[in-house]
């Protein structure tokens, strides 16, 4: 039996630039930043006081009030993204046992954990909430989604830092391709705009100190000085292509390939030659059975840290050869900030939308070229361009690399 093809039939973004496909996509195409002053806690004493928060989000719109109380914000965001994606796909009729879930997260319910540590330290072990463990466990989003929608197929959670969302989509793609499920709800969620995470990332020197919210995330620009921490969730509905066609589903793109590798180099710094990142891109292309020359668009990992953006540029040149200069490369983190474990899923959604619409969202804040970053980063304005094949890169702390290949559906 030949392998099944897998298509993306639903997208559910819950992000700083918008909630739902239309607001999300129109903001990105317009080059609108979702970064603003940090409001989720009093950050006046912190070195970084900007973040990408999901605004106008009411968890009670997506789950009952008791469930809201029992769960962490990471589950609220994930639950909303899952319902949005499922609705967007037209709620396909599927046996619960044939529906899988793979959700990624970088840190899980760190907000709940840190609140309860405060209770423990100030009031003792007898006052700690009985919901602490279910709230903090990184698999809580995956569990919630299965319970909410009644999906009893394979259900896993991926925790690979900033690559978790992409690994989740890639592993979910394999579930469907290999016949373990007919439909897979795959994505990522993160809710780490909490004091301990803001302090810890700042101590690493990884976050931008630029006080101007909308200009702080500037991937590939010479004045970049770190990433901007964001929160959010995004879920994709992955479906067996024949099944999707039979029900007349709207298809965004075919998810055609997935490649993964590890740097085995350093816990936070990318391997300077990018050999493993190159291997992941090549593996995704081989899985899709496509040559490097067919890549029209790359949604870069592009974090806006000095190290990532030069290493990724170098890796793109190795993976695509001279064609790297012909491909459009953009980092939508310039607008969304870095959603950590949700980033790869949100960017897979961006890539699918670029394939479907023939519009490439820009990298904003391109003002001063960096000689080490000399590719076509689609500066500041969206571009109309037919995208037959696109890659979405994700590289996580720990050296985890995941690359997805998305392709225009053959008609």
């Amino acid at each position, binding site marked *: 039996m030949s392998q099944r093809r897998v298509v993306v039939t639903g997208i559910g973004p819950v992000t700083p630039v918008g909630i739902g496909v239309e607001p999300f996509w129109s903001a990105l195409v317009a080059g609108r930043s979702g970064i603003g002053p940090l409001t989720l806690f009093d950050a006046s004493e912190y070195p970084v006081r900007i973040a990408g928060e999901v605004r106008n989000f009411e968890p009670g719109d997506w789950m*009952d*009030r*008791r469930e809201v*109380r*029992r769960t962490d914000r990471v589950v609220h965001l994930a639950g909303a993204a899952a319902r949005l994606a499922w609705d967007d796909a037209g709620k396909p009729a599927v046996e619960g046992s044939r529906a899988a879930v793979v959700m990624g997260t970088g840190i899980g319910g760190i907000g709940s954990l840190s609140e309860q540590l405060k209770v423990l330290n100030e009031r003792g072990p007898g*006052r700690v*909430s*009985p*919901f602490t463990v*279910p709230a903090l466990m990184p698999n809580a989003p995956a569990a919630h989604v299965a319970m909410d929608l009644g999906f009893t197929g394979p259900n896993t959670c991926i925790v690979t830092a900033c690559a978790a969302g992409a690994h989740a989509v890639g592993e979910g793609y394999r579930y469907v391709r290999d016949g373990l499920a007919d439909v897979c709800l795959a994505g990522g969620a993160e809710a780490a705009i909490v004091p301990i995470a803001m302090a810890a990332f700042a101590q690493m020197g990884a976050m931008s100190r630029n006080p101007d919210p909308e200009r702080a995330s500037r991937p590939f620009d010479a004045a970049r000085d770190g990433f901007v921490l964001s929160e959010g969730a995004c879920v994709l509905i992955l479906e067996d292509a024949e099944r999707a066609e039979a029900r007349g589903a709207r298809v965004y793109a075919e998810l055609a390939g997935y490649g993964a590798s590890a740097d085995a180099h350093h816990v936070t710094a990318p391997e300077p030659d990018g050999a493993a990142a190159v291997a992941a891109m090549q593996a995704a292309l081989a899985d899709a059975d496509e040559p490097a020359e067919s890549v029209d668009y790359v949604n870069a990992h592009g974090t806006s840290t000095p190290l990532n953006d030069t290493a990724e540029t170098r890796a793109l040149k190795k993976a695509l050869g001279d064609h790297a200069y012909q491909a459009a490369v953009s980092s939508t983190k310039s607008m969304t900030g870095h959603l950590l474990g949700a980033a790869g899923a949100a960017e897979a959604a961006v890539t699918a939308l670029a394939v479907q619409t023939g519009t490439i969202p820009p990298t904003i804040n391109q003002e001063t070229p960096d000689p080490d970053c000399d590719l076509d980063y689609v500066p500041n304005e969206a571009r109309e361009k037919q995208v037959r094949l696109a890659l979405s890169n994700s590289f996580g702390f720990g050296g985890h690399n995941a690359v997805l290949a998305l392709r225009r559906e053959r008609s």
Partner: protein
Amino acid sequence: MTKTEVETKVRTLLSEQLQVKQDEVQAATRFREDLDVDSLDLVEATLALEDALGVEIPEEEMRDVETVGQAVDLVAVKLGVG
């Protein structure tokens, strides 16, 4: 505090904690069957009752409580108005 005041206070607190209307929290209301409350909800509700009323309710005593009325009785005894 009279027992009636204790009952009013416990019902108000439970309705807030369990996110149900106060008139759904009657003396005969059963936690599990009527309110779909699980053991974790019950532990959390007990912590809230302890904080609000300044009493200590040992876990093993709360474990046998099945109805709102039994919870009121338990708290009333702890407050010396049972």
